[in-house]
Every structure is written in C-alpha cells, then in structure tokens.
C-alpha cells in the first residue's frame, strides 16, 4: 500500500496489495507439535559469510550473510558533529534501513518504528565497546541496510556483529569486538539462531551481545515467556556461540588486512 503521495519518488497506483494465495500452507503450528528442527541441530548457528571493506567509499564497512539474512553496513567518521554544543565524548549514531524488497510484504520507503527499534538495539550492543572519550566533538555514523530479512532478531544479531566488524575495519578504537547471538525457547528446548518461521512458534526470544575477548556482556534483550533457568541457559549457549562468531570476525578482519598489504 502506498503510504502517502510523495512527489520526490515515482508513484504507483493509490493502493496495492501483496498477492493472496489459495491453499496457504497451514502446517507449521499444528503439525509441529513435537517440534523438531528441520535442517540443523538446535545448538547450531547458520553459516556466516562476513566480508569487511566491501564499500570503498566508507571509512569502514562489512557485509554479512547468514543464509537468507543479508546486511550491508558502513561506518563514516569520526567526523564533526552537526550540533554545535560541546560534547566531551563522541556520539555513536546508528541508522537502519530496510530495502523495500527485503521482507515478505513490500516496505514503503518511509521509515517506521521497526527501523528505529533495531537501530537502538544495535547501538546499545556497541556503545560500551567503543572508546568514545577518544573522540570529543565528533560523531561516528553507522549505517546499515537490510537487503533481505529473515527474522528481526537475526537482523539485530547479524547487524551488531557486522557493525562491530565495520568499526574495526574503520580503525576506530574499541575495547573489544562485539558479537551477538540469538536464542528461542521452543517447547522445552532452546534453539540457537532462529529463523523468522522458528521465532514465530517460539515462546520467548533472547539476544545476547558481548565482547568474548574480554568476557564482558554489552547488551541483553529478552522477550516472551521464559523461566529464569531458561534465561540463564540461554546466556550460556549464546555466550559460547558468540565466542565461535568472534573467531569468524577476527579471521575475516585478518584476511582483509593481509590482502591490503
């Protein structure tokens, strides 16, 4: 549906709808009572492809792909803050944008609340890792474009990991690399790194962001129904997966740095 007439864009018809199908497949909820995961172990993450430095115009950048989730991230700065008030610490600005074709339904180009909530989550995951006191009066801009989304949680986790990689690629001082991992409570099990379909049937979702090299947690986000012991179990599994992801990030940065010289 066209949200509003915008003369700065090429406009289509006044309203349009995504196609409706006959015989929608109705399997997921009822048939999956025993809920076994289809193509991987419950403690496995999806394979990660991470490539720093793809965007040549940016100070630092990273592209991350975890199966269907595809995110491009670029870092500009530190550059002069727009507002003139003096700030002893630098500002970390995170902006997230969905490409119009990134989801099942077309997203109109106008920004909505979902973009901002993802941006806030990523900013919170990163802010304590960056040495902002080194950059007075400056802003570090992190821009992310979600080319294809497979679950909001996956976007937050992959986005945080990509953004931290891009910050490292830009040579910005950090205490450590931030990696992030999600978990979903499905029945009695904890499924790591759920897809959109899997988080739809989950009771609760958990996202952990941490700096594995320092053993420090930077952000925890939980929603839905979970027992305290499940939350603690989620922290444990996510933490160990984050350590795995950390070695992927470190390796990709190393390969990229070597290829430059």
């Amino acid at each position, binding site marked *: 549906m066209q949200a509003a007439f915008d003369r700065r864009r090429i406009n289509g018809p006044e309203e349009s709808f995504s196609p409706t199908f006959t015989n929608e497949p109705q399997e997921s909820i009822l048939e999956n009572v025993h809920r076994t995961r289809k193509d991987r172990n419950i403690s496995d993450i999806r394979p990660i492809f991470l490539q720093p430095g793809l*965007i040549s115009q940016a100070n630092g950048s990273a592209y991350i792909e975890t199966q269907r989730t595809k995110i491009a991230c670029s870092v*500009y700065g530190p550059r002069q803050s727009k507002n003139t008030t003096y700030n002893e610490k630098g500002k970390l600005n995170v902006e997230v944008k969905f490409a119009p074709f990134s989801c099942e339904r077309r997203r109109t180009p106008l920004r909505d609340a979902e973009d901002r909530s993802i941006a806030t989550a990523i900013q919170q995951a990163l802010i304590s890792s960056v040495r902002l006191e080194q950059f007075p009066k400056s802003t570090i801009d992190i821009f992310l474009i979600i080319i294809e989304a497979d679950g909001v949680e996956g976007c937050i986790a992959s986005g945080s990991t990509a953004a931290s990689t891009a910050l490292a690629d830009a040579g910005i001082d950090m205490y450590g690399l931030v990696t992030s991992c999600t978990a979903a409570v499905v029945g009695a099990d904890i499924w790591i790194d759920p897809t959109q379909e899997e988080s739809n049937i989950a009771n609760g979702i958990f996202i952990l962001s941490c700096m594995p090299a320092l053993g420090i947690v930077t952000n925890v986000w939980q929603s839905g129904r979970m027992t305290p012991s499940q939350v603690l179990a989620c922290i444990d599994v996510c933490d160990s997966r984050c350590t795995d992801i950390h070695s992927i990030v470190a390796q990709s940065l190393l390969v990229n740095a070597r290829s430059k010289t």
Partner: protein
Amino acid sequence: MAEGLSSRVNSFLSDPEREALKAATFQRLHPRIYLERFLQEKIRPDGRSKAEDINDANVWRNVEVNVGSITTASGSALVRLGNTTVVCGVKAEICEPELDNPHEGFLVPNIDLPALCSPKFKSGPPTEEAQVLSERLNEVLGNGMIPLSSLCICPGKSAWVLYVDATVINYDGNAFDAALLAMVCALRNVSLPHADFDPEVNRTICIRPGFDPAKPARNLAIQEDLVPLAFSFGVFARSHLLPDPTASEEPLLDTTISIILDARARVLALSQLGVGVNKSETLDQGVDSNSTTREADTLARCISLAKIRHAVLLEKLYDI
C-alpha cells in the same frame, strides 16, 4: 601539534604507504590537477587507459551481475560496475487499473541513494540526484520493454504493479548505468504467480508456484528487442573523453553524455548536458577531423564506443 601527529603517524608507515598517503592528500586538496597529471600520462587514476583506441576493452570498468539471490523479491539482481554496487529487487503487488487505462498494469522504478553508499549523501528523503535518476530510469524503462497490457489480470478490475526498487550500496560513480542494468536484470528474473480475478468476491487469488501444474508461474513478457542499456561518458576540461566516470572524476566533469541502446544496438535515447570535446584538442588525439561540428564529433565517438561495449555487456546479460 598537527605536525607532531603526522610525524607520529608516518613513523608507523612503510615508504610506499607514506607515498600513497601523500598522493591521497594531494588528490583531496587538488582533485583537478591530480586528474590532469594522470591524463597527461594517458592513464586514468584507477588504472584504465584513455579512450584513444576504440577497441581497447580497458577503457571501461569490469561488470559483474548476479541474479535471483533475494528470495523475498519476485525478481532481483546485484550489479557491480567497478566499485559501484547496486542491488535491485522487484516486488509484484496487485492493484486496480486506472480508469483511463483499464487494460494496463504499472511499472514503478525508484532508486535510493542512502547515506550508507557515500559520504556525500545524508539520510532522509530522496536527494535531488536520486530524484533525477529515478525520473530518468522511469523514462527509459517506460519505453515499452514490458508492455503494460501484459500486466493486466482482469480488465478494469485487477492488474499487477511492479515496484522496481534499486538501492546503491557503494557509490563510485555512474550509478545510472549500473542501476539500469540492475533493473533490467531483475525484471528478466521476475516470476509472477498465476492469478485469477474472482468477480463473486471481488478479489484476485493467486496460485502458489508448483501447487497446480496446470497453472504455473510465468516470467514477464519482455520485448527483448527493446531491452535498454546505458553508456555514460564525461568530458573533462573540454579535451578528454572519459567513459564510465568514477565518483572522484564525476564532480570535475563539464559535460555528461548518456547513450541508451536497445538490444540491437540502435540508439533509443541520447542526452548530452554541456559542450563536447574541443576540436583543436581532439585533432591531436587522432579523431577524424573531417566532421564539421565538434559536438557531432564527440557524440559519434561516444556512440561507436558504446556499441562496442554493448556487445560485451549483452554477452554478460545472456550468459547469466
């Protein structure tokens, strides 16, 4: 203090790195002289040769095309033109046709130049540059390559609207050529589900591909003859013709020329903003001096360069 800092930085660097830093600083401060010095040596800053020999493939940047990698889109393509990267996704939706054109659907191309792709763009509504690009792409794609009547499901009741959205991921100049190629490739990749309009409930119902073998998904009815491809050029200092300009060259150009060719390499559209290459300069570049006007000279040269490149691109397009 600045000197202290720079000497501190320099002590970390090897000799070639220090030279590269000097060159980068010089380019930043004197972009025009930087480019002039390269062109004097008959080479472009990114290592391409100057467009002197018409058959030299090294005057253009490398193109890579990858289609169909985005599953949420009806059709998609990723194009890399040198460092310029554009992703394009097509979303097909259903709407009511216009009253004036009850047999026609819609094709809605837009390009986005987000803050991510270059430091010269800010986040927010489309910049002037994005608006101009969208408008030009709309004009070119509206040439009848996709007959709008082929998007009709039920006359006056229901039709397809194709939202063709291109997003520039890395802006290193000549976004128009890259975006048009991405849009064409994404449209060729589109698969539309079978759709029927049900007059009783006043709704259009689609059949999931593979569900009913008698009602399969279909590709778009593309008029292959009319598939457009764009070739852009810049004129620097009225004396150098630069095909496929990069982001560092673009702001220095006095003239931009775009040639749009169809699949049979006939000229579909042509635009030249500014004056052509000065004749006295082109003479010593070995350009045919018999032509009467220099504008015609430059344009003829651009068209012949474009046609040679067209053959190379077409091969890429049909090989994917």
